[in-house]
């Protein structure tokens, strides 16, 4: 049953990264859109993400609940040593979620809209940045449970170039996902071209940020290159991801928007696979050379069993309805919008 729980955890993180990522990306795109196009972008985006956006951040909650029920030691270690970036990320989540709703539901549309917009775009940037920083920090090996001073315990665990580079990389991936997702969402050609341009730009930025991650890993002596290349699944995934980028670039000007989305999602899946495969089952690397392992830190057997059943039972209810929701608003054309 432990494997059921691990699969759910991994899937929840992946879905949060792709669906939630596209959602953050929508705000990031808005940040990089000229004023004259902002309104239009906003409308297209709202149509695209409005109905499903509440469901998106549920993936994060599921991942957190799995962690604190199934792997409490991992949850509490992260909570203690990542306290500061977690709080900053939470502030981003609060600001973003509320601003998004407020700007849509405010009964009077006046200058307040500008305030909501500002909050929305900046928090869309901050949240994935810190999410990436936290993710990066799990593998830097700087988390030190035996630290005796404040800086080592609570700051240097995450405040380093590598984590920041991963944060930046996450931000560009989110922008990229959002742009690719929205291409298929707008019927107008000029709009479409604008989003294709954005998607290309963010893809290039993501590659640059990715290289930056590698370069910094070399400088900071984090053996990232060996993790990726010294085992065939890692290398294969890297190869497939590269091929999918090439395919994506060859179809920008076609109508195959669903293929584009698939390829973008595939790339993110491969990235998450590469970064977790080699360490599995370790998910947090500690300073003393030890690691927190999903297989060693699990809660009691009965806890894991009931958790697995709860997750399986939940998905029987959730998946069909979620698919129908997405189908209703994406595939089925609305009678009027």
């Amino acid at each position: 049953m432990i494997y059921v729980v691990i699969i759910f955890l991994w899937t929840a993180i992946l879905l949060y990264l792709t669906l939630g990522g596209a959602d953050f990306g929508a705000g990031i795109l808005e940040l990089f859109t000229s004023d004259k196009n902002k309104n239009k972008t906003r409308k297209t985006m709202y149509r695209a993400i409005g109905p499903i956006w509440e469901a998106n951040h549920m993936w994060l909650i599921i991942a957190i609940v799995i962690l604190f029920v199934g792997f409490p030691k991992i949850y509490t270690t992260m909570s203690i040593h990542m306290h500061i970036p977690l709080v900053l990320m939470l502030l981003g989540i609060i600001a973003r979620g509320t601003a998004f709703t407020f700007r849509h539901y405010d009964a009077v549309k006046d200058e307040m809209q500008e305030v909501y917009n500002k909050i929305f775009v900046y928090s869309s940037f901050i949240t994935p940045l810190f999410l990436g920083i936290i993710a990066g920090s799990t593998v830097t090996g700087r988390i030190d449970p035996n630290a005796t001073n404040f800086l080592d315990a609570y700051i240097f665990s995450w405040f380093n170039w590598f984590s920041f580079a991963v944060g930046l990389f996450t931000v560009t991936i989110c922008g990229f996902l959002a742009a690719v997702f929205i291409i298929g969402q707008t019927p107008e050609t000029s709009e479409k071209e604008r989003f294709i341009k954005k998607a290309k730009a963010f893809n290039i930025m993501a590659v640059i940020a990715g290289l930056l991650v590698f370069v910094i890993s070399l400088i900071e002596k984090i053996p990232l290159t060996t993790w990726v290349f010294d085992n065939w699944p890692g290398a294969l995934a890297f190869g497939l991801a590269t091929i999918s980028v090439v395919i994506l670039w060859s179809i920008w000007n076609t109508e195959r928007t669903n293929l584009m989305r698939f390829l973008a999602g595939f790339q993110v899946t491969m990235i998450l696979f590469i970064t977790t495969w080699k360490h599995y089952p370790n998910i947090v690397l500690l300073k003393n050379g030890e690691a927190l392992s999903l297989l060693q830190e699990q809660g009691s057997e009965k806890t894991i069993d009931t958790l697995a059943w709860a997750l399986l039972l939940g998905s029987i209810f959730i998946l069909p309805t979620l698919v129908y929701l997405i189908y209703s608003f994406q595939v089925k054309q609305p009678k009027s919008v």
Partner: protein
Amino acid sequence: MDDFIAARSQMALSLGFHIIFSCIGMVMPFFMAVSHYLYLKTNNITYRNITHAWTKGVAIFFATGAVSGTVLSFELGLLWPKFMEHAGPIFGMPFSLEGTAFFIEAIALGFYLYGWDRFNKWFHWFTGVVVGISGLASGILVVAANAWMNSPAGFDYIDGQYLNIDPIAAMFNDAWFSQALHMCIAAFVATGFAVAGVHALMILKKQSVDFHTKSFRIAAIFGTIAAILQPLSGDISAKFVAKNQPAKLAAMEAHFHTEKNAPLIIGGIPNTETGEVKYALKIPGALSFMAHGDFNAEVIGLDQIPKENQPPIAITHYAFQIMVGIGMLLMAVSFAYFIALWKKKNWLTKNWLLKLFVFSTPLGFIAVEAGWTVTEVGRQPWIIKDVMRTIDAVTPMPGIIYSFYMFTAVYISLSIIVVFMLYRQIKMVPQLYDLPKTIDDKP
């Protein structure tokens, strides 16, 4: 303020904030569904307008409730890691089921908010009902988790180890039923009176009277029925607390000396040094009756509880008085309303009845906050009753005080914005809904 107090204050602040939104998120969908049903049955456009207006309210509260809830699920670890390390695997079951309930709620809300005129109208209505039911289910589940802290179950605590964990037994701990029942009814009382009060005010101001009268009636009926049931369920809770947590009961009642035929103390200023309560109204025997159903039963007083295991007495006592006082008051208002509905129809046109409701607008929520203060402060110094002390659970990270200030600032600004938005929502009612409207516009 030291870090420990800061952590407790931040937790209390976040929960106190979340509970308001979650109560509304749990209860408003039912109001919405009723007015939607009336619209589908009668085709009266006012009901459609009410449904639209309330739907906007639900969307605003849902989003705020969801983000504040997400914050909470992190804060449990950020502030109480030692607690979560042991408690997570034991009391996590309701949280993982709650995840399902939230998910269904969010999906149903997606259908409901964006589904006007897209789906079969009864299917669309039904998704609104699902929002309400799954909201209620999450409320029950999360309260079951809290109840576990008051009445730990589902594990054996041997030499500091948590063994033989059974998450299902932990979920169905002894306190879950009385707490969940009381909480759900409280959500209906608080939301019902808050919504009814706002509409009553607008009727008094003679604005969009038809709209507000119809809305008032739906909210008031829910609120008043719940307010009459609430003291009954409160009595069940009190009896349970008397058995399960005598220290909490003694603090609630400022009951210093163990005695038979114990008096119920109403109001008053407890003096913890001398063990006296000044200026209080005392009803002989009533506490014995309330706690054990027998006027002569012995009620354990604070004198039987070691000093280091006593909760803060004054806070618990005042909070309990506030809750019960409001409970009695709202019950009285509710009876007046029912008399008006059945016997004295002419009261319904009188301003004093509406004014009573306007006065009651915030009371339900004040009682909710007070009730939680009783539960949480009354459990101190334990975070898990008789197993783990709160001070042993707090994070080692220093400087929590700054995080407390920051969250306070954030929550205060959010509250201001939400109030401001609701004010605008209500101000716009005449412009949005008084004109005759075509059937296809959307909320």
